[in-house]
């Protein structure tokens, strides 16, 4: 069981602090914050999510810049504690619509009310927003989302596609809208995080897709839902050693997957449909993992030429391998440069807008930002490096690898699809909004040089 729960701001202030068992000192929040802030152990400057200090175990997760912390003196399951912290954050988000420091401070009484029901004397009672609804009486004070800068995954859907009601995902599951009645709608998001490592000669060394089908339901009366996936979906690849396996004729092969507890798999083996009664709030219906080869959305080409003993030129080329109907956004390309680099002159393509390039002196990194890349296009950056001392040996050993982060809405490399989303109808007129959205994000997208 846990002993205390607290949320700290980035500066280390208590936003909420709940002591469940009273066997850990009250000053634990301060002790914790000091330890995390000045963490230094075996060359490691980032505190691990779990550590022990004078017999007290501290668990923490970072959520939107806030620290969610639990303490205990017991030898607890770390997965349990960390999962719980993450769930508490999710429940709070369900209630507040938008989770950040300001909304938490405005609603701390509601948060206390939630915490009282989620954990009793250190033991978890429930983390289901649905169940909690009947115990909670405070009304959330909802922040005006429109005046806030977009944050986190919620922002994924805001750009690029005007039809998306981007603010909906930041809507509280309990708050009433100004118009009175709640809008009947359900969101199903297929989010895929991809990791690719290219060798210096451009071959794919490793690739993986970590996917989630995320659901957020605002339906009243909890109707049953059927979610149909690709007919040709198969699970399990036996030994995963054959990375080079052919990509098959369009079949989607998952290495493995897991499901939310509300999901019934009775007909999954027959027709690949998931049946569930979605509870209120946001939750992952299914997590899956794919190591089957897929077409990477971007090809990265790097060319380094030495130009005399104190100079070199780097040419970076990014080619978008997806259809032109799709646009990637918030692209960042990074590349560490040799430590003796003093100055870099950039040459962007002429006439292009929404691109910047920068040399970060402090960590000797090249950063290339692009607002968007349309499918099929290619972009080039030329950088002229100046060194402070004469260069010996191989420059590639000191520079690189090139890494990339990006978001591509309405695109998923796995080709996993929600074929249909069926909602059990109460009346003929009942026709709630259904949003099925796809998005791909870079997790670790790296090209060695």
């Amino acid at each position, binding site marked *: 069981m846990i002993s205390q729960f607290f949320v700290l701001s980035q500066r280390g202030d208590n936003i909420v602090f709940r002591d469940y068992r009273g066997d850990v000192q009250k000053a634990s929040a301060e002790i914790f914050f000091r330890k995390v802030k000045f963490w230094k152990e075996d060359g490691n400057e980032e505190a691990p999510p779990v550590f022990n200090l004078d017999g007290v175990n501290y668990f923490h997760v970072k959520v939107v810049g806030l620290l969610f912390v639990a303490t205990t003196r017991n030898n607890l399951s770390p997965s349990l504690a960390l999962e719980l912290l993450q769930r508490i954050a999710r429940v709070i988000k369900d209630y507040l619509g938008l989770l950040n420091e300001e909304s938490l401070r405005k609603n701390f009484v509601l948060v206390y009310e939630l915490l009282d029901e989620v954990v009793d004397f250190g033991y978890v009672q429930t983390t289901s927003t649905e169940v909690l609804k009947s115990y909670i009486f*405070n009304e959330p004070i909802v922040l005006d989302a429109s005046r806030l800068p977009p944050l986190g995954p919620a922002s994924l859907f805001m750009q690029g596609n005007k039809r998306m009601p981007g603010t909906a995902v930041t809507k509280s599951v309990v708050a009433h809208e100004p118009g009175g009645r709640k809008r009947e709608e359900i969101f199903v998001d297929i989010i895929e995080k991809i990791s690719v490592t290219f060798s210096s000669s451009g071959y794919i060394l490793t690739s*993986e897709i970590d996917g989630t089908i995320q659901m957020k339901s605002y339906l009243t009366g909890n109707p049953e839902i059927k979610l149909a996936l690709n007919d040709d979906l198969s699970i399990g690849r036996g030994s995963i*050693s054959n990375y080079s396996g052919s990509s098959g004729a369009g079949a989607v092969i998952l290495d493995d997957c897991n499901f939310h507890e509300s999901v019934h798999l009775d007909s999954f083996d027959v027709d690949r449909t998931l049946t569930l009664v979605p509870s209120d709030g946001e939750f992952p219906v299914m*997590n899956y*993992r794919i190591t089957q080869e897929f077409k990477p959305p971007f090809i990265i080409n790097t060319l380094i030429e030495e130009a005399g003993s104190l100079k070199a030129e780097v040419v970076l080329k990014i080619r978008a391998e997806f259809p032109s109907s799709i646009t990637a956004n918030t692209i960042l390309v990074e590349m560490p440069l040799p430590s003796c680099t003093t100055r870099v002159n950039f040459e962007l393509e002429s006439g292009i807008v929404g691109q910047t390039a920068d040399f970060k002196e402090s960590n*000797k990194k090249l950063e290339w930002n692009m607002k968007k890349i349309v499918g099929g296009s290619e972009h080039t950056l030329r950088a002229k490096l100046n060194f402070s001392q004469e260069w010996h*040996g191989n420059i590639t050993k000191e520079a690189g690898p090139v890494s990339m982060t990006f978001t591509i809405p309405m695109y998923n490399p796995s080709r996993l699809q929600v074929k249909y989303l069926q909602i059990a109808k109460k009346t003929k007129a009942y026709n709630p909004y259904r949003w099925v959205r796809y998005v791909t994000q870079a997790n670790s997208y790296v090209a060695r040089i």
Partner: protein
Amino acid sequence: MVKLVNFSFTFSGTRTSEIGDGINYRNANPRFGSIRKGEVSDLKMQLRGLAGSRAPGTDDTKRDLFKKVISYMTIGIDVSSVFSEMVMCSATSDIVLKKMCYLYVGNYAKHNPELALLTINFLQRDCKDEDPMIRGLALRSLCSLGVANLVEYLVGPLNNGLKDGNSYVRMVAAVGVLKLYHISASTCMDADFPALLKHLMLKDKDAQVVANCLTSLQEIWSLEASTSEEAAREREALLSKPIIYYFLNRIKEFSEWAQCIVLELVAKYVISDSDEIFDIMNLLEDRLQHANGAVVLATIKLFLHLTLSMNDVHQQVYERIKAPLLTLVSSGSPEQSYAVLSHLHLLVMRAPFIFSSDYKHFYCQYNEPFYVKKLKLEMLTAVANESNTYEIVTELCEYVANVDIPMARESIRAVGKIALQQYDVNAIVDRLLQFLEMEKEHVTAETLVLVKDLLRKYPQWSHDCIAVVGNISSKNIQEPKAKAALIWMLGEYAQDMQDAPYILESLVENWDEEHSAEVRLHLLTAVIKCFFRRAPETQKALGAALAAGVADFHQDVHDRALFYYRLLQHDVSVAERIVNPPKQAVSVFADTQNSEIKDRIFDEFNSLSVVYQKPSYMFTDKEYRGPFAFSEELGNLSIGTESADNIVAAQRVEENDKDLLLGSSEKEESPGFGNNGSAYNAPSYDGSTTGASQAQLDLVSLDQLSTVNTTSSSLAIDELLGLGMSAGPSLAPLPSAALKLSAKAGLDPNNFQQKWRQLAVSISQEISIDPRGVAAMTTPQALSRHMQSHSIHCIASGGQAPNFKFFFVAQKADEPSAYLVECIINSSSCKVQFKIKADDQNTSQTFSEMFQSALSSFGLA
């Protein structure tokens, strides 16, 4: 449930933000304290004014004020002075107000017991409210007051709560009983609450009520078990087949969190046959697909422990859990992945061959935190074998070039470790030597240390290595460990390295600038080794080194220099034999963690032990080690119901464990705790030093004395019996007809340990044995061979004259029912103390007789 209140917030936006701002400026304003004090008394006045008011809108104003009070409380301002006003204002039907008031009261009651009394009235009244929500909330607050002299007010409401028609109230009451127990154990026991909980646990329709009853009972009974035999029995009863099956059959009704608790409970259940194992595993198979990592890990723990004694099934479990674990690692937040990855790491370390084809999953991603990368590197090192080494080392070399220095260092160490564990190191040595050519200081330093270790194991590579190492200027090496490694190589390969004497000489010249004593020690030894081979060139350096060494302020350096000096004075050839004897290549470098510790961590799967890579006793205070911790269990057994001196008992526990573990360990392995540090009050223990083991033996005899004192009356009979036994061998052979023992042991040390923990003692006795038998017992091995001929197998043994300790196991010939024996023999008093635990309690008496007859025949043949 219908919401009781529907209201809109009336206060303006600016007022709420005031509260927020107050929190923000905590540190910014130095006059903060005094300002707040004024505000608190202001609040007090306002609250007082509202106390009796029935005016419309009062509740909204109250809410506003309560909110302010709680926000102060959160940031650590003492608002206990408004206690009575808060209580006065609590007379309301507004549930939000009530909740805030409960929160406030719960926070301050403990330290203001006299004020807490004020709340009893309204809480008791609320416990009878017609709304179950209010009943539940009030009961929870009542139990959370934590004031010892108010417990009498708790009993009635708790009793009603447990019988309440509403499950929410029962849920709260079940935890309430535990809270009461922590305030006043006697009140809780006197009111017979545990019995009520047990009834509820087995009958209630609501799964959360059942789960809360279980957690409360587990805590209460394990705390009681140290003083009450009945509680110990009740605790054992939780692990009985009917209860376990009751929970297993209902498992899907429970919330995911309660499922974790049930799974933990089942993991402690002792299975009687293999059909049962498969039934349970089939029932729980789908839990492995759960999105909650805690459920999956609890299931995995259960599966692993169930199949420990079934080798091939155990391996199948490993194969089965691979994919779910990898999926958990890649879904979820980085923190959650880390927790799962730590467990995967443990499994990989235990069975690397099972994961050898999955090595690509352990490649590091550039954006992962260092603590994740470090785990992955260790896994990559572990799974490296003939078929994948090339690829793994290639990948590791990429990390060595990384700009991230700690990562580069770890990667070099990983390459080095792989080199040390492989047979064909040809290619790896080349890679390592290439690192030296990268001319990065940290890379060179780290590599030198590895090359040194490599040469100690594979002296045949010296030619290639020396050629490259010879090119490195010692001036470029700053890190002590690397410098020491380089100096060691200069001394060891003085013959092959042409410049060796001169490099050493220049190092000696800079003696005073060398800050590390380790380096100076190495330098002394290297110079003298060099001298033995190339005396004329080194003589001068040696003289200088010895002079500098003798004058050194560091004690070890001084002593070593003086020692070398006198050795040389005595006889140069003797000195050479001592300082530089012919060496054998090191075959295996000692593991930093011995196998006992690793097994213990494995036993504690799905706990912090896995993340910290330390068994729980190293980082947890005893009272928090969990209801079923190994040591605690043994502790109870050795004390029995008579309360012996607590301290002795506790130490005895440690000693017990270790003896049990010691015997099963590989003898070649160093038994020290290595790097695990004694910071956590770990008992310092080193099996190789006689001093330590002597101290333990003293403990054993002490403990025996105390047992003798307290149980003298029953012992007298035991002694008589024992004497009769050894005197009349005619008694002995009888029972063997009734009980046939298997020639095979049937249990390995791991299973033995687990079983020993789970079973209760069925027989505990002290007997005397024939002195002739004792005389034959020159070594523990003699007795274990003898017992083996009677189909009683020694699992572990230890000690030296006059105290020997043994763990034996025997198994019935026709069924997997085992007998476990702990046996302490004192060879000077000819006394034997033994405890028997058995799967089948009915036959333990028969087995005990067989055991005694076997023991008493020792040495008589």
